């Protein structure tokens, strides 16, 4: 047995089996209990990671400004970014380091789940290598894999979908701001969908015991995320953000897409008037070429 198996995998497997035994030989409940327990143990690390991520996201507009300003001078850009991080008290490596520390624990936990499931006969035989000399550990195996009408050794479509949904919610909550750079925004949008979809596919391919672990893990993370950032990216975002200086002003938006060349009579159709709350109803305020807006006044 190597160090990884001895220090991390073996204790986790035995704890998982003992918990299953304590919960009436219910492996599903054991997975839920252990996932929650491990999450609680990692709470300080997770919270620090979430806070670092939030701080990093809050700095995004300033970083975008710096990128605009020093886009060509990469060295200067890096210097300025570091200065900004220092001034704001943000450690950019913090997120990554916390994630790196957490990663082995998550990997060990899902390896422990897969090993304890002992899906194939070879799995049960392999499991015997990891057992402590505790009488209840030996006698309870193989674990009861029935949970809420599912066999945790088989694939389960509903759990796989739940994996994707919960992961998407968690990811969406963690993206509190949209990157100013449209390419970055597009990339983060892709990531938002890619990860949940990939894990859904993985969940469809592996025993549902693993999917149960992913779902519980995502739910716990959602709760933690809520405590730190609230609903985050799930909150309805205003369509456009206006600077405080613009408050109360009405202005003309020329960003409406230009179609094919039109006559000068149509020009006004592309002019949209709005205030900080959003669009002003076009039938009331929109300029319609060829019509005299002051006709009513003049008639009077």
């Amino acid at each position, binding site marked *: 047995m190597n160090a990884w198996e001895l220090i991390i995998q073996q204790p986790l497997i035995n704890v998982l089996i003992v918990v299953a035994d304590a919960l009436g030989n219910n492996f599903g409940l054991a997975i839920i209990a252990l996932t929650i327990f491990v999450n609680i143990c990692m709470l300080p690390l997770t919270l620090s990671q979430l806070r670092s991520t939030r701080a990093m996201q809050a700095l995004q507009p300033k970083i975008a400004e710096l990128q605009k300003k020093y886009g060509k001078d990469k060295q200067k850009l890096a210097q300025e970014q570091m200065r900004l991080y220092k001034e704001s008290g943000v450690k950019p490596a913090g997120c990554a380091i916390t994630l790196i520390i957490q990663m082995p624990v998550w990997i060990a936990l899902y390896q422990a789940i897969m090993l304890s499931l002992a899906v194939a006969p070879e*799995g049960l*035989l392999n499991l*015997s290598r990891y057992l402590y000399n505790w009488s209840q550990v030996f006698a309870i195996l193989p674990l009861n894999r029935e949970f809420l009408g599912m066999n945790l050794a088989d694939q389960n479509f509903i759990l796989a979908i739940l994996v994707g949904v919960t992961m998407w919610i968690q990811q969406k909550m963690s993206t509190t701001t949209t990157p100013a750079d449209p390419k970055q925004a*597009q990339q983060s949008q892709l990531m938002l969908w890619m990860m949940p979809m990939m894990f859904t596919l993985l969940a469809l391919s592996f025993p549902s015991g693993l999917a149960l672990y992913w779902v519980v893990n995502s739910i716990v993370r959602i709760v933690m995320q809520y405590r730190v950032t609230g609903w985050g990216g799930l909150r309805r975002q205003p369509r456009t953000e206006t600077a405080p200086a613009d408050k109360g002003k009405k202005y003309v938006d020329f960003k409406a897409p230009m179609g094919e060349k039109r006559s000068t009579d149509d020009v006004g159709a592309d002019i949209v008037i709005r205030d900080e709350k959003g669009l002003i109803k076009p039938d009331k305020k929109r300029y319609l070429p060829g019509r005299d807006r002051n006709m009513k006044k003049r008639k009077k």
Partner: protein
Amino acid sequence: MRKRTDSKKRRGHVLKLGLLAAMLIIIVGVSLGCVGGLTPIGWSGGKVADGTLFVGSKEGRLVAIDLADESRLWAEPLSPDGGGGGFGCLPVAGGGCGGSNKVAIYGTPAVAGDLVYIAGYNGKIYAYNADNLATRWVYPREGNLEPFAGGAVTDGTSLYIAGNEGKLYALDAVTGDKLWEYETGDKIWSTPALSDGVLYIGSFDKKFYAINAADGTLKWTYQTEGTIVTTPLVADGLVYFGSFDRYLYAVNIADGSLKWRFMGQNWFWAMPLIHEGALYAGCLDKQVYVLNPASGAEIASFDLGGQVASSPVAVDKYVVFATRKGVVFSIDTVSHQLKQLADYEKDVDGPLTAYEGIVYVHTSELALERVNVLTGAILSPISLESQS
């Protein structure tokens, strides 16, 4: 020019995302890859009849090896039912993994007359002509049962086998028609033992059963505190089997009463063996225990340094064991000397086979390793890889 730069950048982004996805797949794949036992591979032992060794290969085929000239014959591969999905490896009825359609074979083939029988993890039982390996019959003819992780036993007229459905089946050995079935409380992985018209088998329901082979009626049961997967051994009015409660049991075959039990530090997975008046039992606690078969008193124990899952064989005055790491040992039953014969450095989980002083070891690879117990000579392995 600008368009070209934009498309280059876009391609760069796509590449980055692709790399990220690939990394994720690698992380998940490697992490799960480290978890052994997700895929059913099989560990069939060998059976020798008239100088021909029959074994189920890890390609999911029955192989017949003429031990005189080492010529081999392969049966048609067992057909999987369903398949592993996506990236994963699930022991579906077909035993497929990530698109693989090899059917795992765990049971040792049974031979009677001109027929050879084998059961697959695809939930089917096959009978082949021993001389050309042409299929004689398949049970069930339509569809599949739950996987079979044990082997069959036959008296020439009936074939007895049990599977994951928890049922012990009696089939007509010639036609494959079902004669009777007996249902236990859970899955069965062990091969039944047949002695004097009584079948002995253990189940995942922690009970050990004695069933009349003629009509499938229950004779007695013995309750243990753990799952039973060991193939039982019947000798001198006792039946010996191991249980997941870590005990090796000796039960009277007449009435199912306990004669004695012996505790190891892990499961007794392998079938024990009686030779020269002593019982040899390999255990997953890496020990081989030598016990008095009548009283269960410990005579000696040997530390093999590795778990013992494969059933031992007797050759002359030696009892030969293999560890799961592929180290083969012989124990001299007279002097109680332990001797290492070979170290194959490959997984060995299936039963050993002995014929004319040579022990055949089915390793995790597609080969039968061979060692001459009497001379200690390691012979070249016999490949089980099919030509087609």
